[in-house]
């Protein structure tokens, strides 16, 4: 339990900087019991600054206006929190347990932090005393394999690799085969960053999937879409395309230690009903922590 509280603190700490930069006036507005038209418009602008997107903000404002009509005094913060949590709680997070060999695939556009996330996740699972095998499936980006090997060293887990430009599906196959034979708990597969609009690269993900299924029929067990918290509304397109092409099961929200708030997950979850497994709050090996919807929404709305 102490560990868990520690994590929440860390989560809040990561988000605090965010608030300091932008949210001072939001706190003031949310403390009001009544809001006039100007204040409502101001509030709308502030919510839009969180990358929640026009549609989600419209919905939030609609609810506020409805409540304002209904009663003399309202608690804007509680109302917004209620609305946001409804979206974030739609899909409960699934714990990372490995009754048999579990294959985890990490996907996402370029530069979101897939390799770093994978390194941290490997260290976390290893730290729990479980066996981890890391597969260097990004055979495209220069030195991606070296980067992953360094993470492997840090986490103390083996990394399976082939040469640059090799077939990612083949190395994924090798990884799954080896893990199955040895009964390794976790196989974490890194993939090259790809823009979701590039059909041929998206098809490659399906190929990786099929080659994994030749070894372990129900693999990959988890497909994590790594999403950069600084991303704007394009995140919606990313999530939709990756879900369709790779069967994404969970989101990971990275770079939450910056001034961006990752509000785009709200419209994403509204549409796709996916759970958020982890958030990244720094470059250290411990800076990957379980998602906490309450803390996240507080981060969006608190001062």
């Amino acid at each position: 339990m102490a560990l868990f509280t520690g994590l929440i603190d860390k989560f809040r700490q990561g988000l605090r900087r965010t608030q300091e930069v932008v949210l001072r006036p939001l706190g003031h507005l949310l403390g009001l019991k009544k809001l006039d038209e100007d204040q409502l418009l101001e509030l709308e602008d502030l919510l839009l600054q969180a990358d929640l997107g026009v549609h989600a903000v419209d919905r939030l404002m609609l609810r506020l206006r409805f409540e304002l009509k209904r009663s003399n005094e309202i608690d804007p913060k509680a109302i917004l929190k209620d609305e946001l949590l409804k979206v974030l709680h739609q899909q409960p997070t699934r714990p990372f347990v490995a009754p048999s060999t579990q294959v985890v695939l990490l996907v996402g556009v370029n530069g979101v932090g897939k390799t770093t996330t994978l390194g941290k996740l490997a260290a976390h699972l290893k730290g729990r005393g479980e066996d981890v095998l890391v597969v260097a499936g990004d055979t495209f980006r220069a030195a991606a394999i070296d980067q992953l090997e360094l993470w492997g060293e840090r986490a103390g887990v083996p990394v399976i690799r082939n040469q640059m430009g090799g077939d990612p599906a083949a190395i994924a196959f090798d990884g799954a085969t080896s893990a199955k034979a040895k009964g390794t708990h976790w196989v974490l597969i890194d993939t090259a960053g790809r823009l979701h609009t590039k059909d041929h690269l998206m098809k490659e993900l399906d190929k990786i999937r099929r080659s994994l299924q030749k070894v372990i029929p129900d693999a990959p067990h988890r497909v994590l879409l790594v999403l950069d918290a600084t991303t704007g509304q394009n995140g919606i397109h990313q999530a939709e395309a990756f879900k369709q092409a790779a069967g994404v099961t969970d989101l990971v929200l990275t770079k939450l230690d910056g001034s961006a708030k990752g509000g785009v997950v709200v419209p994403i979850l509204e549409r796709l009903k996916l759970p958020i497994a982890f958030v990244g709050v720094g470059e250290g090996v411990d800076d990957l922590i379980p998602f906490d919807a309450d803390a996240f929404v507080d981060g969006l709305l608190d001062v």
Partner: protein
Amino acid sequence: MFDSLTEKLSKAMKALRGQSKLTESNIDEALREVRMALLEADVHVAVARTFLTRVKEKALGAEVLQGLNPGQAFIDIVHKELVEIMGGQADEKPLSFAAQPPTVVMMVGLQGAGKTTTCGKLAKFLKKNGSSPLLVPADVYRPAAIEQLHVVAKDAGIPSFHHESKNPVEICEAALKEAKLKGWDVVILDTAGRLHLDETLMAELSRIKAACEPSEILFVADAMTGQDAVRSAGSFHEQLGITGVILTKTDGDTRGGAAFSIKQATGRPIKFTGSGEKLDDFERFHPDRMAQRILGMGDVLSLIEHAKDKIDEKDAERLANRMAKNQFTLEDMRQQFQQVSKLGSMTKIMGMLPLPGITKEQKEQMAGLATDKRMKHLTAILDSMTPKERANHNLLDAKRKRRVAGGSGRSVQEVNQLIKQYLEMKKMMTQMNDPKFMTRMQRMAGAMKGGGMGSPF
């Protein structure tokens, strides 16, 4: 979800038909639509607000020019303003060079923006333009970042600087010395990605700046960035005084409002865009194209370039010649299908076309008529014909049609449909060869362009 602005405005502006002036009351709804478009494109809320005030001032009382409807007149103002703010006419020279070489270019930005790849692209660009650049890896933090730059440099055919030190300032200084000694005239410093909130690392950048006196400090920004772009770019600019921006990952489907936000937050020009996985996917920034993209007006220019890329010009020319001579056969139709399928899915192509007055639903419907699946079926039918049959469709009697249907796994009815479609295309081409018809088409195209106002309408 992202209906194009054109569609929305044409709705909002319907009420204005026949009015000759833009007034406060008649542009309010249009302004709201523009605001929506900007926000959906990730333009920062405050930036959008300032912009709309400016547009309103310009638009109020503006005469609606002959040949334009009020909607077109309004969007023309919006578009021109956006282009103006985003950079107007591009500078002759994108980078300023030091009087005394080497010129130092320092690349900065958040993690994952694409600095290292962009360094390679910029170096290659400069080399093509006659410089001899040196790439310097100064990211000592991210695992294998230095190795990555060496690999990129090798791919680009550019020398990269090797140094033992783990101190970025020392590395940069040493690289500068080496460049002076060996005659590299541009030194590109690849610094580590960092958060603008990280004081220690930001101070390090200031030290590199002080030690190397760069002529250019380029902020590398991800085109997919949301509202945060204002804060991060603004903060980098405040602390370092950036000289320009390079926008990366513009090859996706992001509307790229971040470009506008960054320009407004820093006042510094966007100099280049990175647009693909290859080191040659790097070009000068085009404010007009970006403006259209942000406004969701359909990226015709991109489509044209895309098409240029994928379509074999010789094939296209040969086909055009055959059409001109009225020799269009089933074989030509087959080749045409193959070319179109190279462009990607029909829905995507339709999305890129700004078709005024056509809603998204209609576009999807139209794309549906030529769905990729249908294309495959048609190609299968054509493939099942013999070369002789493709050269002369009259050979296809009932027996042959049954064979073709069997071979392609489609029905005889579908084979008939295809032949009917072919005959219609052939007929259309005969018309196109008629000079009278072409004049009529050109007049129509002219009208669609909005009377040559320089706007995409």
